[in-house]
């Protein structure tokens, strides 16, 4: 078991594309770590560079404190599961699982022992004689995992581990994968473009864009407190409202509500007692910690639909007022779109409490949930210094 240290890593393709562009990252021993980003953001290239399948152009990769930047993939002590599982179709399950041992010329008796033991761990008993083509998608994935585990690597790399499974199986496999990783305690890095998958599985998430790290943090951090509008947009199954606004009243630098940088407070009560600033947005206003941003400054106001509350009666204090346009059923909750002075704002409400379209509503939010981003750079306005790792 071992951690991964990445320093100043860049992977440049022959056509000049910097797929990974000067990245620093530390994955702790035993951590379940997600690389998340839209397609083409460089997350898969980063994974393949850790694996050694792509050559690093700059920087170093250390696994277990050993510099492996120029080491062949097979000698890094790294096991990888590919998106299509890459099972050998002409070998049965047992041969597939023990192929890493066959390469190392381990005796056949030992190999079959390892095969049945690993198959047991991944509930593949009784399938050892089958060919991959005779297995379901979920079983194929487990065989690929078994092969990776049988190779006894220090680090496990997973490329889009769940994307080849159908929706129902995906949830099942997700739970299985998380439990397996916990049981084995093996340092695991996986790539995904699905934010829900990353939030559900990972201990920590690195959100990437254009080969660069945009935010690094626990699922709770990246969800509740995205440090820039890119991450804010990307994380969350219902997209965050990002609205143009203006600072109307400053909360002042001191005495402002201070959501701590590493763990966001669970409710706004602690903060609301302190002096709160105000942003005018979408024809209304919302409370917010404005820090040192001057009154009148243009900002982008970010607020998750989940953190907005619909108030039907009269509301005193800062709120957004508008007319319900449409309500979309999401199961246990609904996404209601409200037209606030020409700006569409999304808000989720519990099931069966959806206001009918055309109803006038007021939306409120605690100051801690209202995030202000620099209008130009899209970076989170926060107390100095920025809490990005």
């Amino acid at each position: 078991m071992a951690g991964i240290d990445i320093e100043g890593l860049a992977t440049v393709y022959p056509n000049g594309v910097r797929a990974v562009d000067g990245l620093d990252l530390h994955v702790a021993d035993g951590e379940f770590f997600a690389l998340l980003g839209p397609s083409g953001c460089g997350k898969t290239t980063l994974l393949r560079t850790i694996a050694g399948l792509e050559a690093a152009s700059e920087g170093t990769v250390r696994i277990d404190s050993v510099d492996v930047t120029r080491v062949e993939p097979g000698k890094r002590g790294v096991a990888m599961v590919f998106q299509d599982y890459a099972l050998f179709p002409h070998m049965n399950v047992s041969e597939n699982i023990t192929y890493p041992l066959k390469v190392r010329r381990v005796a056949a008796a030992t190999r079959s022992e390892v095969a049945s033991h690993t198959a047991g761990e991944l509930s593949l008993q009784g399938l050892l004689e089958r060919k991959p083509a005779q297995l379901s998608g979920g079983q194929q994935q487990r065989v690929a995992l078994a092969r990776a585990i049988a190779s006894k690597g220090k680090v496990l790399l997973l490329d889009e581990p769940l994307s080849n499974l159908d929706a129902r199986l995906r949830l099942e496999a997700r739970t299985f994968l998380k439990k397996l990783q916990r049981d084995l305690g093996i340092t695991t890095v996986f790539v995904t473009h699905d934010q829900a998958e990353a939030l559900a599985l990972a201990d920590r998430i690195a959100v990437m864009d254009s080969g660069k790290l945009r935010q690094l943090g626990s699922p709770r951090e990246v969800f509740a407190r995205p440090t820039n509008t890119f991450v804010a947009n990307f994380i969350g199954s219902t997209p965050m409202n990002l609205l143009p606004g203006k600072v109307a009243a400053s909360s002042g630098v001191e005495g402002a509500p201070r959501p701590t940088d590493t763990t966001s407070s669970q409710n706004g009560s602690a903060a609301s007692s302190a002096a709160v600033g105000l942003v005018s947005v979408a024809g209304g206003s919302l409370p917010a910690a404005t820090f040192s941003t001057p009154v009148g400054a243009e900002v982008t106001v970010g607020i998750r639909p989940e953190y907005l509350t619909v108030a039907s009666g009269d509301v005193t204090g800062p709120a957004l007022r508008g007319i319900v346009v449409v309500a979309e059923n999401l199961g246990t909750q609904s996404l209601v779109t409200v037209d606030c002075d020409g700006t569409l704002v999304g808000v989720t409400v519990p099931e069966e409490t959806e206001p009918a379209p055309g109803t006038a509503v007021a939306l409120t939010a605690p100051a801690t949930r209202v995030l202000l981003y620099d209008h130009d750079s899209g970076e989170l306005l926060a107390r100095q210094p920025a809490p990005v790792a």
Partner: protein
Amino acid sequence: MASASAPARGRAPARDVAGLGVGRALGFVAPAFLLIGAFLIFPAVWTIYIGITNYRLTGVEAVSPSIVGLSNYTKALNDALFHNALWLTLVFVLGSAIIGQNILGFTLAWIMRRTRPAVRRTVEAFVLLAWILPSTVVAYLWVAFYDRDGGTLNGLLGTQGTAWLIDYPMACLVVFNTWRGTAFSMMLYSSALQAVPPSQLESARMVGASGWQTLRDVVFPHIRGHVLTNTLLISLWTANDFSPFLLTKGGPNHESETVPVYIYNVALQGGELGYSSAISFLLLIANLLVSLVYLRLLRRRS
């Protein structure tokens, strides 16, 4: 055919995929059948017929050949020169096709997979050139290459005066035909290798498999069918290849006289058309047998 060709209204529509009906379908393939019949089947049957006569190029038997039954075939079975030709054909096929073209073609395809596109295209162009040039041109080039006086090979090795085509005729032909035919194997293996999923090659790389282990465990199982098909095709082409004649005329002293060359020499130098037809038929039978063996292997693998 006419009655079936146009299904009348109200009749059940044709059941075949294209919805043509038997009559029209036959109409479409008739021209092809006609051409194949005239230029392939008729000559083949004609050859079998001549094979049981004493038909000659000149003389009395050229005018009125008579049926001699299987005596041409019994003659072939006891003909030392025919045995010699069979043996040389075997050497030629084994050396230049099954070993030479196959291995060189695969090696080129395997190496070219990783090279820059510009290099790959250049190499492919040169290799293909050997394949598309007319036999006569190629033969002339190789005669010049092997020539005793001022030949390129002697110039390169500094072995002036070595008559390669006379001293080592079969070796020369094997090298020549490997050069000539490798393009096909290379192209076929190039596309076959693209059918190997990259992730499987990378999986092998991740577990530290050597180049040979990767070939044995990942690549060959994927391209086994291609190997068999390729080997079948190039074996048959090489067995029937007539270009050795252009280099050595079968000589010196029958040392490079493969079966097709022997057939030509028997028919046009010796004038024994009947006998040469019988040998042609034997070659056809041999090719069929080889094909059957390959097809059986292919079926067993899949």
